[in-house]
């Protein structure tokens, strides 16, 4: 989206230029009046904090103490900080665990709700409900469902599996949080896929059917190639979001990140080290820089993979 918006600004249709120029003479200051509030907010609360994060990462700034320049000391400390490696591990695992599910499952769901059978609008809306609900509500609902005595365990006991400590074991807890992320994201990506599926020419399916391809075969040879670029988009969006996960894990594992902090993610670590009266702003900024670098790298990786497939 970014590239298309910029490039479109560069080539205005020639016939519109004249009235626009007259407008400029008429009211020289108003364009900036129009753009000023937006620029002010974006500048003061997004771009300035971004730059100051980059600067703070090289200082020992604390919440109440202005920082001194310390060079790469924060980053050197990161390398020896067990908690940082735990956070990096968990955030990376999150991408690995969540992204494949969010690329594939919503596509299958979109195929399920694509056909216009009676009541389908209701189902589409209902499947979107988890997207609308606040992450806090979603987190608390699942904490209750996965509780030692909660619904899921009651059902598991009723069918003879026995109770499982979803929220007490470090790995089960992380997997449960991933499942919740997938559960909440399904509807959102389903709608994106629905829009893509609507553009797949029906003739392709018919041609494949005439050739004797079954449903699975048609899915693999017609549907998947047709929505491939959407799959890449979903992969990019979901991997960046998954790496920055905070709320699900924070709510399910608690502020300290589960047993011995083993479920801490990178953004949880940023929040924990950087806030409060003794917050280490400089150190938290260094972790933030790692978050930036990895998310940009993830984007590039996914987009590269896309381009290589095409050639």
């Amino acid at each position, binding site marked *: 989206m970014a590239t298309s*918006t910029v490039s479109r600004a560069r080539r205005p249709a020639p016939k519109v230029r004249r009235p626009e120029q007259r407008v400029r003479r008429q*009211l020289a200051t108003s364009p900036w009046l129009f753009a000023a509030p937006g620029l002010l907010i974006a500048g003061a609360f997004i771009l300035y904090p971004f730059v100051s994060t980059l600067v703070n990462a090289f200082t020992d700034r604390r919440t109440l103490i202005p920082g001194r320049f310390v060079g790469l000391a924060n980053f050197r400390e990161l390398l020896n900080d067990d908690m940082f490696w735990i956070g990096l591990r968990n955030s990376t695992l999150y991408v690995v665990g969540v992204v494949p599910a969010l690329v594939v499952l919503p596509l299958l769901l979109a195929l399920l709700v694509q056909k216009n059978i009676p009541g389908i609008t209701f189902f589409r809306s209902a499947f979107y409900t988890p997207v609308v609900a606040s992450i806090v509500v979603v987190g608390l609902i699942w904490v209750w469902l996965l509780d030692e005595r909660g619904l899921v365990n009651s059902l598991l006991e009723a069918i003879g599996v026995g109770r499982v400590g979803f929220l007490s074991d470090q790995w089960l807890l992380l997997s449960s949080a991933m499942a919740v992320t997938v559960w909440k994201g399904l509807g*959102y990506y389903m709608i994106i896929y629905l829009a893509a599926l609507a553009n797949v020419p029906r003739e392709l399916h018919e041609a494949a059917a005439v050739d004797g391809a079954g449903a699975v075969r048609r899915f693999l040879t017609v549907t998947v190639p047709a929505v491939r670029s959407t799959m890449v988009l979903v992969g990019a969006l979901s991997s960046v979001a998954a790496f920055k996960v905070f709320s699900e894990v924070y709510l399910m594992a608690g502020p300290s990140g589960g047993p011995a902090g083993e479920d801490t993610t990178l953004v949880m670590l940023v929040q924990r080290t950087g806030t409060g009266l003794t917050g280490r702003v400089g150190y938290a900024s260094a972790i933030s820089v790692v978050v930036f670098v990895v998310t940009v790298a993830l984007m590039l990786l996914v987009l590269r993979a896309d381009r290589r497939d095409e050639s």
Partner: protein
Amino acid sequence: MSVLEKVRPAASRPAVAREPRVTDEHGRRVRAGELVLRYLLLLAVLALTVGPFLWQLSTSLKGPTEDIFSSPPKFLPGDPTLHNYERVADTIPVWDYALNSLKVATANVVTNCAGSALAGYALARLRYRGRRAATLAFVLAMLVPVEGIIIAQFTTMRELGLNNTLIGVILPGCIGAMNVLLMRNAFLNLPYEIEEAAYVDGADVWQRFLRIALPSVKGTVAVVAIFAFMGAWDDFLWPLIVLSDPSKFTLTIGLNYLHGTFAGDERLVAAGTIIAVAPLIALFACLQRYFFRGVGEGAVKG
């Protein structure tokens, strides 16, 4: 064009109701076996996606004497009561929190609609030195991951003396860069001829913006409004960082506080979550068409 319109081009076709046969979007008959399988799958997914909300609702309606941990589980409350909703209000000022959330969300809707429409118009329709730089600033702002800059946002807010205030909660997201670019694209898609006519008639730039351009992009404004409301009502990380005084909490932070302090009583937490989610589900039910359009416009044009 909305996603749903694309997906079901013949939505208003009444044939389905009259004929016993079910046909798909191309008028072809759907086989009964396939249809049954489809509905079974749909119902299974329905249970998975909506079931947890209903279970929460059921828990919130169960009285103090009812066993909420029974196995096999009891899906319907034996003696439904609203008592937990009263108790949650005794435990935390849940209605004050809801009011705070409402203030934040309403402010966000107003500032986002006004601010992004103004800026979007400036980027799409006005010509001046530095327009490309302004566009670039919004694109960059859109790309910056919020999770990475929260600490710096927090220190910025402290420097402004706005920590622990609702203004502080509102400000960083009050004119989203994404919304500005959405509005810009909407204005770009309008034909110039209409505004030109108004210009010839002597309308100045504000008149053309307010009377002609803005009414023509109402759909996009609605999308911005809905997502601004939902984003503000649902936000968790930023209010968690900026608010420290429990009397100023928004609903999401208040719920987390309730959960942390009174984790023992699931009925209370359940009632709290239902209070938080009910308005959004109601809003969504009324405006679902715009929601789907918003997702389509926000992500598919990539």
